[in-house]
């Protein structure tokens, strides 16, 4: 038995190493994805090119605009004469935001009924959200600032005490600078691991069937589970190697902190890889050729991206969608990965996820061993 298993594993390794081009793609893919995520993906949009219509041109309007600019969300790049011209700038894509200040801004401020208009390019969801929130936050802060000064001038300011009745202090745990990468890396590791584990395993098994080599294998004493295990183990090594690459790049290049226990992370990753590989075997049993296997793996990857909580928080999803997400192993590992990497917590904080992954792995392996055909029909 061990001799057969060893022979299959050796064969798989030799085949993997000999197919240089595929191996290169498999090893470079996660690095490429990581750099794309690291440099191109930014959930929070700032330095929006902004066009200004300042019909007042007084000190107060200038102060307001400066407050907007110093928030770093808006880059005041163009000055035009009318609102129509400002909208034209957005139409042409030269600006994403327009700030319109009506005439007599200073006087209106003194009266307490000043108005300013912020026009936002609605064609991009992230821009709208960022610009909208920034405009409100900045103008309210500016408003409070003005009010404070007004009250102080009126002699109502308490010495040393804040004039606002409530002052909310916020502190963001684990990720004080709110860097997207700190959220992204633990998820990315999980997602890439699942994608490669599923597709590599499915392809390795389906390839035997497509090339007809399975017919020769079936007349040897090799048992189905030996063939599966022998094909899976080399993929475990490749997947673990890629995991290390992503972690190392994340920690050393992108300076994403790794708070928890590395050994625990490896143990959990191994458990996760096995359940993903089981899913790969299951994919292979329902695919008749490599193209089908590839497509089916991609089909699993899409909901994994959407439903696992990698990008969109699961808390807001309808219950049915959440159940669908539960069927994908990455959903469970994502919380373990974030728990260990970002929060630095131990196994007791995500014990239930561990059981789920164990159960999941056992079920998919049982199902795939059952459906693996020992004959050609």
């Amino acid at each position, binding site marked *: 038995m061990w001799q057969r298993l*060893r022979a299959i594993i050796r064969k798989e390794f030799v085949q993997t190493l000999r197919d240089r081009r595929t191996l290169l793609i498999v090893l470079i893919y996660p690095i490429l994805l990581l750099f794309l995520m690291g440099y191109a993906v930014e959930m929070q949009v700032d330095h929006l090119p902004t066009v200004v219509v300042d019909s007042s041109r007084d000190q107060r309007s200038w102060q307001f605009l400066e407050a907007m600019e110093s928030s770093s969300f808006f880059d005041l790049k163009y000055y035009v004469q009318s609102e129509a011209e400002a909208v034209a700038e957005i139409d042409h894509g030269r600006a994403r935001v327009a700030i319109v200040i009506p005439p007599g801004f200073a006087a209106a401020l003194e009266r307490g009924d000043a108005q300013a208009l912020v026009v936002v390019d609605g064609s991009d969801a992230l821009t709208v959200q960022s610009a909208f929130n920034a405009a409100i936050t900045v103008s309210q802060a500016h408003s409070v600032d003005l009010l404070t000064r007004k009250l102080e001038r009126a002699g109502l300011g308490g010495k040393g005490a804040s004039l606002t009745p409530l002052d909310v202090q916020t502190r963001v745990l684990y990720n004080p600078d709110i860097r997207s990468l700190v959220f992204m890396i633990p998820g990315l590791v999980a997602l890439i691991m699942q994608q490669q584990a599923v597709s590599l395993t499915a392809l390795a098994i389906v390839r035997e069937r497509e090339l007809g080599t399975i017919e020769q294998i*079936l007349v*040897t004493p090799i048992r189905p589970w030996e063939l599966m295990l022998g094909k899976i183990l080399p993929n475990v090594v490749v997947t673990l190697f890629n995991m290390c690459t992503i972690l190392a790049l994340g920690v050393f290049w992108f300076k994403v902190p790794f708070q928890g226990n590395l050994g625990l992370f490896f143990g959990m990753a191994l458990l996760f890889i096995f359940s993903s590989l089981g899913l790969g075997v299951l994919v292979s049993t329902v695919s008749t050729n490599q193209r089908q296997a590839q497509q089916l793996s991609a089909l699993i990857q899409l909901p994994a991206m959407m439903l696992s909580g990698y990008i969109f928080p699961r808390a807001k999803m309808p219950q049915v969608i959440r159940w669908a997400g539960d069927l994908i192993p990455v959903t469970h590992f994502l919380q373990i990965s974030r728990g260990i990497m970002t929060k630095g917590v131990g196994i007791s904080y995500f014990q239930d996820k561990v059981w789920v992954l164990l159960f999941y792995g056992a079920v998919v392996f049982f199902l795939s061993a059952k459906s693996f055909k020992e004959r050609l029909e």
Partner: protein
Amino acid sequence: MSLQVEVRGLSKYFTSHRSGEVNRAVDGIDLDVQRGETFGLLGADGAGKTTTLRLLNGLLLPDRGVARVAGLDTRKQAREIHQRAGYMPQQFSLYGDLSALENLRFFAEVHGLTPGQMAQRIPRLLEFARLSGLQSRPAAQLSGGMKKKLALACMLVHEPEVVFLDEPTLGVDPVSRREFWTLLSDLRADQGLTIFVCTPYMDEAERCHRVGLLYEGRLIATDTPQAIKRTVPGELVELRPAALYEARDLLGRADGVLEVQTYGDLLHIFVDNAGRRMPEIEAALQAQGMAVTGLRCIEPRMEEAFVSLMLRERRQGRGPSAAQQAPT
């Protein structure tokens, strides 16, 4: 002598997913192969040769009947059969990205050979298959004939007592074909191996002790090549007429003609008495203004016998309407 392969009423039906039509790929075969015998299963493409071999190797389950290989039931003891039999599929089924030596080593290991056995057998097999100088070349880069020899070597690595070969010389040049059969004869002579080979080539049938003719899933004859050739009716006359089909139709109705077969631009005519009918045939054709060349009496070959048996089977009319093409 004991039976190496024993088949009784073996049947395998395939149902088309789309039309629900049932295809009787193998239809009630009875067959015995003695130990040490070389048995050839002959048949046109689609006659059921590959299905029969897969049934014998436990790769398919029969719908009816039983098959025993080395006394083991193919239905329940497939794993034991695999240890004592070798199977070479029609299609190249080794790993193209592994070298010849790596392929041999892989099959040796999965069959549980010890390092000592491997060190002894693998060089011998490479030499036997005349692949010693090519052992590190990827299998995919070997020529058609070399691939077949490598597959043969891989199949022999666990020293089976019976081997099943599915069209082993398909797509192989004539020189390599001859070489391959020499290897098989050596095996039979040296080790007393039982060889069960499927082939569409009639000349290869002559190399077998006994042959079975498979036609539309049914075994229509099983005997020695000599006996099968004797089943052809009467004597055989060959000629090359100017107008092939007119001549065929004309002679088919002539006195003393039992059967007419076409081979390219040649007609093979089975007659009750060649000496008497040859002048008659010539005269009949010339009366219709058809020139006749190459008229001679020939010895019937396997091919004529096979086509003759097939035509007889078709005339008896149990076969489905989808008539098989005669092998050419």
